[in-house]
């Protein structure tokens, strides 16, 4: 009788110990970058990828591109302007802007010009070359390619919350503006809606 009690007890202790130990170690699991994982409901990599994929599809299939190539007999040069974060979260807009840039350049139908901060660094380097580089390899100033279009945008959110339920609505707007005449040649929009349930209790 007492032996059974003892063994039951020790089994319980063992289980408890095992549980404790398992809670101690950090566990790492590698996941595919395309796998959708939502943790807190905040803006994450999945949103960023969704937005850039959709926007890229859209921008390459619209008339502005063919029109420009036909009339100018060359590819348009685009520059990325500011994508303003008007949302409730500190969103890193650089990731999807970089995604977008990469897809567009790799499509081979659009050229990209370095942004203003990048340009400054290049100019400094060119100035440096002027002083130190060999004549044959020196790059001249005033030979930069001017952009034809500027890509600008905003990220907006509307959040509606009641108790532990939260509805998060994201809207990303991107606009391509012609630098020559301020015409908006393309407007892209992507909406994301999430319903987040927060837990009220834990043990």
């Amino acid at each position, binding site marked *: 009788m007492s032996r059974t009690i003892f063994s039951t007890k020790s089994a319980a202790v063992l289980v408890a110990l095992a549980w404790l130990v398992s809670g101690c170690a950090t566990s790492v699991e590698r996941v595919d970058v395309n796998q959708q994982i939502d943790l*807190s409901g905040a803006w994450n990599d999945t949103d960023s990828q969704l937005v850039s994929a959709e926007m890229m599809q859209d921008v390459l299939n619209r008339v502005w591109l063919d029109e420009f190539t036909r009339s100018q007999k060359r590819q348009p040069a685009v520059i990325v302007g500011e994508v*303003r*974060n*008007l*949302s*409730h*979260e*500190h969103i890193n807009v650089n990731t999807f802007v970089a995604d977008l840039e990469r897809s567009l350049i790799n499509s081979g139908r659009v050229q990209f010009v370095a942004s203003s901060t990048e340009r400054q660094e290049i100019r400094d380097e060119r100035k440096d070359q002027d002083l130190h580089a060999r004549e044959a390899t020196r790059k001249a100033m005033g030979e930069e390619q001017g952009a034809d279009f500027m890509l600008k945008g905003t990220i907006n*959110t509307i*959040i509606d*919350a*009641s*108790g532990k339920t939260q509805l998060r609505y994201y809207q990303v707007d991107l606009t391509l503006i012609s630098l020559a005449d301020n015409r908006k040649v393309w407007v892209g929009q992507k909406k994301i809606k999430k319903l987040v349930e*927060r*837990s*009220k*209790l*834990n*043990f």
Partner: protein
Amino acid sequence: MSAQRLRGGMEDLPTYIGRVSIWLATLACVLALNGCATYSNSFAIIKQQLAEQHYDEALKSIEDQSGDKRDRALYLLNKGMVQRMKRDFVASNESLEAAKQEMERLYAESVSEHALSFMVNDATVSYAGDDYEQVLVHLYMALNYLELGQPNEARVEALQIDLKLREIAEKIPDSKFTEDALSRQLTGMIYDELGEWSDAMIAYRKAYEAYKKNRAHFSIDVPTMLQFDLLRLARQQGLADELARYQQEFSVASTKETTASSEAEGELVFILNNGLAPIKREKVIGMWTPPPAAAVDASKRAKNTDTTPTTPPVLINLALPYYESRPSRVACARISVSGKQADTQIMEDIDTIARASLSARMPAITARAVARAIAKGVMQESVDKSAQRRDDAATKMIGSLLVRVVTIATERADTRSWLTLPANVQLARLSLPPGSYDVTVELLGKDQNLIATRVYPQVTIRQARKTYLSQHSMPY
């Protein structure tokens, strides 16, 4: 024989309860020992280091005291605040962001912690921050971003303040803290700078409503800078009716002030974090009462007077928190920039807000303390009873005494609060032409006597932009 055995078996249950109680009490004792000094007592040394402006030492002390996982939010809040005083705004934002996430995590209440708090005390529950603290963490993050010159990031915090205030208003509709006037004012200033004037107008309006509503509780009138902001934007937006109403209410000669900050000029915004927020102390109300079950026993005892031994009275302890102000000698600050002067004005009285918040929660805290006292009383009684059935006098004594000591020792008030917050926040604004200036800040006492002077060299003012500068003055 068998009857005796049966009786013995029946007696086992109370003895068992008694033994478990002693075991529990010892456990509680161990728990209580490391919590012998209340949270707020351990802050004295940090306060001293801050007063001497030894921020690195203060950070180290905060780090040393960071052992308890339940106080993690507070540790991060204090760390972020001291990093701010050190003018390390990037690090401060990292700490405050982590504090915010910890508070968010604690939105889900822990059942096990609450069960333990019912047996031991309120301080066994992880600290998720008072409502006003949860709002102010956003405010200070916004200020950090503004001092770093990132109004767009500050705008994100402003939106989060709005969300948080809505959440509080929904949770506690009759709370006094459903609006935070200073946060709204700052939100307005952020929108204003970013050229989003209709949003700025809405924020100023909310600040105005909040100051008016809270005038009775928090004794701050609508600040003159807000009056000017309202007049200026109402005129700019062409809101004629509203403009006339404000002009009548504020009775200011409107044209002069409202045109003062023209488009060509920039603005210096000086924030004085004055003193330290009140600190929670513990008051203990102790009383000897008959054990809870004694009343029931009394009727039984009346019938058969002889055998039942009288149980000793139980000492019930209620440990309750109260706020103690930490007065500052500084009444306001005067900023001087190239011949121009401005005095700071109180925009938010955190001292009063904290007190109001605690007194609103006091009935619940007291109710929990009473419930706990009764629970501990029941435990005490069962131990006493089981002890009396033992023959050994020493065991009898030790058992009841131990439980008695532990119940008293574990009853501590929850004295945790964000202690590096200022007692009040004051603001001064100066319109200046673009350029680089030396800003002189003089801290003034109650009768305008000079307490300290500090010069901030080479502060850059840019056209149509606001430059934020803050200082925290410590009480000595």
